[in-house]
């Protein structure tokens, strides 16, 4: 298991990671609905294992402006979690949360709005981690959130580099939320390779060779 890499992940393992993604994203959607006080629907999350060079295209191009919220994770697993959504969607959520009415999509975020956005990321990733923690019985402690608003490629370089230390693919979970608008959100969960082993072992999959 020491040499485990995402590049040669068996379909069985992929299915488990997919299911973790589904449940985590489901909980995150519930949290989002409570936060903005409206009903939010969610599409079935798409779990993708992508080559680095294709990552940018996923989100509408490497130059698509996105908001990325990043938290380090400690506890039984070392790693990090990132939640990304495009800037328009981030603007929509922040406007809703602050109740200040809709600002133009291209309006920059002020300090207060940025911290609201961090809080959105905090709650969404927190509920995601909670469900993962409950399923696996692993202790997962997130750091405070950090936010960046920039080109998709640039934000994604951070998790891509971390995946790059282990292999040549990146695991991405895409979820679409719907309230009045369709919002695409992306989760990237980044345990170290040891962490993947721990997650899978705790789910009773540790003995399967990959």
């Amino acid at each position, binding site marked *: 298991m020491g040499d485990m890499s995402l590049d040669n992940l068996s379909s069985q393992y992929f299915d488990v990671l997919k299911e973790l993604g589904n449940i985590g994203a489901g909980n995150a959607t519930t949290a989002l609905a409570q936060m903005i006080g409206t009903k939010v629907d969610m599409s079935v999350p798409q779990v993708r294992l992508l080559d680095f060079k294709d990552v940018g295209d996923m989100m509408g191009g490497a130059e698509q402006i996105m908001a990325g919220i990043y938290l*380090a994770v400690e506890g039984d697993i070392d790693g990090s979690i990132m939640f990304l959504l495009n800037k328009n969607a981030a603007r929509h959520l922040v406007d809703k949360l602050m109740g200040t009415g809709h600002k133009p999509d291209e309006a920059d975020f002020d300090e207060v709005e940025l911290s609201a956005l961090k809080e959105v990321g905090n709650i969404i990733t927190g509920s995601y981690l909670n469900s993962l923690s409950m399923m696996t019985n692993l202790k997962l402690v997130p750091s405070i959130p950090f936010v960046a608003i920039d080109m*998709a490629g640039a934000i994604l*370089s*951070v998790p891509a580099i971390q995946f790059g230390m*282990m*292999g040549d693919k990146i695991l991405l979970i895409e979820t679409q939320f719907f309230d009045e608008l369709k919002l695409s959100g992306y989760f990237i969960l980044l345990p170290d390779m040891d962490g993947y082993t721990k997650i899978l072992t705790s789910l009773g999959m540790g003995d399967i060779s990959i």
Partner: protein
Amino acid sequence: MSQIIKVGMADLNICVSPDGITTLGLGSCVGIAVRDPVTKIGGLAHIMLPDSKEIKNNSNIPKFADTGIEELIKRIVAKGASRQRLVAKIAGGAQMFAFQSGNSAMRVGDRNVQATLKKLKEMNIPVLAQDTGDSYGRTVIFYPENGNFVIRAVGKPEKTI
């Protein structure tokens, strides 16, 4: 008709004037543009990590500063450029999140820049200009015709180094 060749993440390619070559949304990665000013043959590498020797799974040549730069130079020279005339410009290596701890993985932007400069120095390729560090992403376009390295960032005026 000239075209602009696209280079992805952990990828590299070469081009000949009047064509240009680009990579979009460099974050902590580094873009290394090299050309021979006489033949106007050039190329661009988009590296992600500083050192192939630090990592066990290191068969992906363009992913690392050391192996990526070697391969880029090899391909530019194979196309007919003079090894002695090659010059470089670099961009990227940002720290995208204000996240500080003892975690060296989070300072990878800076380590990528240092490794890139070191490798270019070892190979005696002068670095004519660089736009690195800080905390924002960069899209770069390189023209081997005149060596212009155009840098675009969100909310900032375009610049050429």
